[in-house]
């Protein structure tokens, strides 16, 4: 059975989030298994770090504003140090 549209969106967003955080915010591979709802999970912390850097409201959630910014074209130099 095909996924519902809502599920498709969420899954697509999670994929984008995973790749984005891995590429630009040093998120270790395999961290997707952490539940995003846990406030102290590494994923939430990375989302907060990204939201703070990008001047977004720091919610720790993958909201529409965060997704929109993540889809904007950008410079390929990562925003974190070596």
């Amino acid at each position, binding site marked *: 059975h095909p996924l519902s549209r809502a599920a498709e969106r969420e899954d697509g967003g999670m994929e984008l989030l995973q790749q984005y955080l891995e590429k630009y915010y040093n998120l270790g591979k395999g961290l997707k298994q952490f539940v995003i709802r846990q406030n102290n999970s590494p994923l939430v912390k990375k989302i907060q770090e990204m939201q703070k850097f990008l001047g977004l409201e720091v919610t720790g959630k993958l909201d529409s504003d965060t997704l929109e910014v993540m889809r*904007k*074209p*950008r*410079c*390929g130099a990562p925003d974190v140090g070596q």
Partner: protein
Amino acid sequence: FSTFPGMPKWRKNHLTYRIVNYTPDLPREAVDSAIEKALRVWEEVTPLTFSRMHEGEADIMISFAVREHGDFIPFDGPGNVLAHAYAPGPGVNGDAHFDEDELWTEDTTGTNLFLVAAHELGHSLGLFHSANTEALMYPLYSSFTDLTRFRLSQDDVDGIQSLYGPPPASPDAPAVPTKSSHRESVIPAPCSPALTFDAVSTLRGEILFFKDRHFWRKSLRKPDPELYLISSFWPSLPSGVDAAYEVTSKDTVLVFKGNQFWTVRGPEVQAGSPRSIYTLGFPTTVKKVDAAISVKEKKKTYFFVEDRYWRFDEKKGAMEPGFPRKISQDFPGVEKVDAAFEAFGFFYFFNKSSQLEFDPNAKKVTHTLKSNSWLNC
């Protein structure tokens, strides 16, 4: 703003760049122009200057590439990552790579090359990403930037000046502020009542007013003068020139500083430049030329040095005998000249912030003007 870990920066102020290849999306001239303009953005707020190389290894190598392109950081196809660049240093460091899978444009219908290049060259000079959304060094591309009014944010200026400091100060003209009010930019204010010029020359029907590292280009076809860095047209010319004049019959402009002069034809500095002013026939007691005027009908050039002048025969290529003479003796009302040019049959002499219009036939001053009257002030 932020800098790279360890704060890498160039240990010299004059850097070279090379455009290794071109995108097929734009004419070559448009790529050249976007890169030059992007470099100028940083040049105007630092002591840094840039010159272009056409072969060999330059400090900043600029290229267009797709996917994996030899640096182990592959591009990702259309969208998302547009470009990346490396911090100052040897080899790949300092280089800027642009994703050829983007559609590069001069406007914002695609990805504007100038905006991305200005950002990437900020990396090449040592700036890392900024968290300030107004900053050029913010990592996200904004297609809503007004290209006609583009300027660096205060954050960008503070960032780059934390590495290289401000540009050298202009000695006299109050400047247009481009950064913190306690520091001055060298961008000269055209309508400052204290404005003086280093030199003035015609060039192919336009008038060039030289000031420190810049010149205004006044075309009679355009109402507003345009300000450029001398180095953006002629990278090997010095700043703070003493005198300049055009020999229209040879389509050249001679630019003087100290006891040397450079010959330029359009955008090219001629081979053999600079040459010594003594090859023109000046005695070695002359250390610099204050101003020069060439009169094309008579093929004579007048060189002004302190309160005297020499006359050079362009046909014979030699100084005329009987010179130097006192300026005031043959140009009544004129004592000393900082800069000069000839237009519409009149000589225009600049001294400090004043300008005298002189009729060489009537041998008298016909008007006294402010020096910046040509700049719509």
